[in-house]
């Protein structure tokens, strides 16, 4: 066997590699050492060339020893490389920094209006019952806003809703109930009186008032209408209770007081216990302990008849909520007008 490939010589080479490796101080010297040992002209390559001169019976032992040396050199060089890289990275990390306490850039998120939030919440609540949202005009005729809803001209009930009249002889809708009239008519004239009718209408309504903190000439309502066979007053009470408990919380108490609306009979006023005094009575609830949150009732037979529905076979109910008031209560606006102040300093806190 060639003395160059004796185990002794291989051990010597290994020792020499260890010494050279230990002397390396700079990362670029690792590459030089790699070239000297593993390059095309490197020491290990040269040894492998001489393997062909080794007797056949010794070749496996010698080859194994050479491979072992090669693997060790590769591994040690890799380790040395990694060592230098991590030192460099550590130094780099120590030197770099970013002040993340500085203000964020870009436009912060905006938000939808609290009234929209309330509307979406009610819509989500009503969808499982099959209520479909529909739109209607805000510039209405007397017929849809009053006459068809059992509110004849000169009836005292018109006092309940001070009305804007346009120069074209129209009115600004005083309630979303006008949409109810339109839907009943559509269903009657164009859809063969198909039942059930389950719709909700929401949006702006107008009252001709002198504006102050608690009176605005425009505000929002949300109304649902259900017409079908077999609907009763107790169904209406059940649905309202469900809605109010969901909106205000299950622990809140709900009660009903008789009311009068020309388009419903019987008419009811749903109330919840006052959130300020918990039903004990305080100035904000007029010492009643209760706050009215909407109006409701069974659709008046005159309204059903007006649109061709037989009130002896078909019944229906309607429930309206003041979404502006509801938004005010939910977000603690001091009064109705402040809901419509559009103060961006306030709205950005209600994201």
């Amino acid at each position, binding site marked *: 066997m060639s003395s160059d490939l004796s185990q002794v010589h291989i051990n010597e080479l290994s020792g020499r590699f260890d010494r050279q490796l230990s002397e390396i101080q700079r990362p670029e010297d690792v590459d030089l050492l790699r070239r000297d040992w593993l390059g095309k002209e490197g020491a290990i390559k040269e040894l492998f060339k001489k393997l062909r001169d080794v007797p056949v019976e010794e070749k496996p032992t010698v080859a194994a020893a050479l491979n072992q040396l090669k693997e060790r050199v590769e591994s040690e060089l890799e380790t040395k490389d990694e060592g230098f890289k991590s030192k460099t990275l550590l130094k780099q990390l120590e030197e770099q920094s970013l002040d993340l306490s500085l*203000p*964020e850039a870009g*436009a912060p*998120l*905006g938000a*939808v*209006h609290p*009234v*929209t939030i309330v509307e979406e919440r009610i819509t989500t609540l009503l*969808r*499982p019952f*099959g209520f479909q*949202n*529909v*739109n209607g*005009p805000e*510039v209405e005729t007397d017929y849809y806003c009053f006459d068809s809803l059992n509110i004849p001209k*000169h*009836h*005292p009930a018109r006092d309940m809703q*001070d009305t*804007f009249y*346009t*120069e*074209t002889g129209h009115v*600004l809708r005083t309630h979303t109930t006008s949409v109810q009239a*339109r839907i009943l008519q*559509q269903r009657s*004239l164009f859809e063969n009186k198909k039942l059930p009718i*389950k719709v909700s209408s929401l949006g702006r309504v*107008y009252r001709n008032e*002198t*504006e102050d903190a608690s009176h605005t*000439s*425009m505000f929002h309502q949300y109304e649902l209408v*259900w017409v079908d066979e077999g609907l*009763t*007053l*107790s169904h209406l*009470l*059940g*649905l309202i209770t469900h809605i109010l408990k969901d909106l205000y919380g299950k622990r809140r108490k709900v009660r*009903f*007081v*008789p*009311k*009068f609306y020309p388009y419903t009979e*019987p*008419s009811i006023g749903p109330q919840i216990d006052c959130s300020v005094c918990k039903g*004990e*009575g305080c100035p904000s609830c*007029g*010492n*009643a*302990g*209760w706050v009215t949150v909407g109006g409701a009732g069974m659709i*008046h037979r005159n309204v059903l008849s007006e649109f061709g529905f037989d009130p002896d076979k078909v019944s229906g109910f309607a429930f309206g909520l003041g979404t502006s008031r509801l938004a005010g209560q939910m977000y603690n606006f001091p009064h109705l007008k402040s809901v*419509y102040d*559009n103060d*961006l300093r306030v709205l950005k806190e209600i994201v």
Partner: protein
Amino acid sequence: MKLQVRLLEKFIELPECSVETAARSPLRHLLDDIGLEVKNTEVFPDKGIVFTIETLANRGDHLSVQGVAREISARTLTHVKVPTMAAKLSERKAGIPVRRVTDKCPRYALLEMSLPHEMPLRNDVAAYVDEPGKHPAIVDLLNYVQKESGQPMHAFDAERLDGEVMIDLTTKPEQIEALDGKTYTVPEASVVIRDRKKIVAVAGVIGCANSMVTSTTKKVFIEAAVFDPTSVRVTARAMGLSTDASHAFERGVDPEGIPAALKRLVFLAEGSAGTIHGAESAHALGYTYSESVPAEKRKVSTTLNHIRKELNMPRLEEVEIVTRLKHLGYSVDAVALGKDKQFNLVVPSWRLWDVRNPEDVVEDVARSVSLNRMRPELPPLDYEAPPRNPMEILSARICPALVGNGFFEVITNGFYSAADVSVLEGLHRGTSARHMALKNSLDASNSHMKITDVLHFTKLLGLSRKRGVRAPKVFEFCRLFEKPSEPVSDEPRERDPLDYNYERDVLCFASAGRWSDVEWRKGESLEEHARLFKGVVAAIIKSIGGAFSVGKSEERFLHPGMQASIKIGRNVVGFFGVVHPTIREACDMKEEVFYGELDAKLLFKFMNKVEAPAVSDLPPISRDVTLKIDPKEQAGRVLRIVHESNLESLAEASVIDDFRKQEEAFRRVTYRVTFQRSDRTLKHEEVDASVTMLLDTLKTKHGIEMI
């Protein structure tokens, strides 16, 4: 209505209500529960507890203590005490004839009474009269009896009436001097009471000074009548008056209540001598009663099972229902109807104004039983969710794009003032004619329906800046209104969801100040703000699955040189740009405002389903070309030409630079065109050939050259 608890107690036994706890007393809750909602509670040393009650517009019978007592009796099942009254009125007719020449007065009674030299008010009446002694005692008595019974009455000084009482209609507007000393014009077709020479009262509204009683009046004619509610209301409104009498007549008084009210009056007037030492009595001298038709005996029927079903109270006893209805004044005849019971009811005269149908009876039972004793039952759920309407769909898709870009939703008024309209008219003659004016607005700032949100938004952004908001950005889904140039039919028609006659749904959005809220960063230039604002337009259109381009626009409320239309395909769906300086000045806004408006109906029409696009993993090849562009030319128009040139394998084209040297009469706009295929890798030679072809087209067809 003011309700004295002490007076109510004279008519019915009441639940506990002490001075200390009146506002939270069982009586107060009972009143609320039967539909007589207490709005205010006051305690007076002389009158005791007084509730202010909100009465219902269809219940004239609630405008009396007896009416309230009846409602309580149906709940508590105690009986209403009938007040003492004179046994009869008079055998003789009143001293002057009564003529009714209009059917708007179905009942009219005239009671002639002599008054003593002095007639002090009885103590048991004086305690319930507002400011006793201010008016002659007979007037106080009339007011008191109205308070008890709900029947308005009026006293004429007999010596000041000339010859007769005629219930007449005016044929032209006439002037009167009323009891309150003011002069009013009574409109045409109003019911009035005349003697032979003059109007002495406006029926159901107010008496005239020419026949009013004074402290020296010796003889009076007391009028008690039933007037047509609508007629009274129209007249009172036209005169700008609302009196206790008109309030009652408008809601309907008991058509059979006249004799009882007058008998009570006679009892109290004649009885004064017996209750007050030394007092003389008044005496009834004559009585005339006239009616056009007998009072209706209205019949309504319903069944036991119907009431039980409506209230969801299957065990509600027949006897309870019948008893409560009788306490309300119904006469009830219950007859078997198979396994059910039919109630044949005769409606009490004081309820003829509001009870007509079975539902009214159900309401009366529910009210007397208490709505809160009913068992609410949830109707069945519908497992099929209904389709969403167009505005819901648009809002759900667009709002995140706006909110994500820092826009806040606001809600502005639907109208503005005449001064606002003048500003718009100043920018474009004829604009005011497009506005729909309101005829009766109480507030001058609400005189016209808005045709644009640009005024509200500019004012709001200006206010926000003054409030210290650095980067105000707002949006609103709202309606804009416009008076049609030609008449529009309001006849019913099959309607699309967003189809209206006088209004349209729009999305408006605006920004001012800096784009980013962060103060330490430098604010954007106008150009940069414009690009950021345009980015929001892109985000909105992208959110509905579309792409847009801009075109020329001539919106009068925007800066003429800083605006563009927003197009989807070839369809204009809106516009955006910088608000006109005149509007800014009118709105006291110093900074530039960007405003955009999109038509919701068109957005919905061009909305697309958003789907994952096919993408290529093969390498794209780009070429940048810088073109000479006229300073007035829109770089986007050239970009559209590039897009529409149908270059093979063109994947994307965009503007990457816009630069102008001072000494050059043109802009240098650099476009990047990128080519890519998904089936094979493109060769550079192919791309270069395409670019050459593009440049040839630009030069030969559009006169645009490369630098």
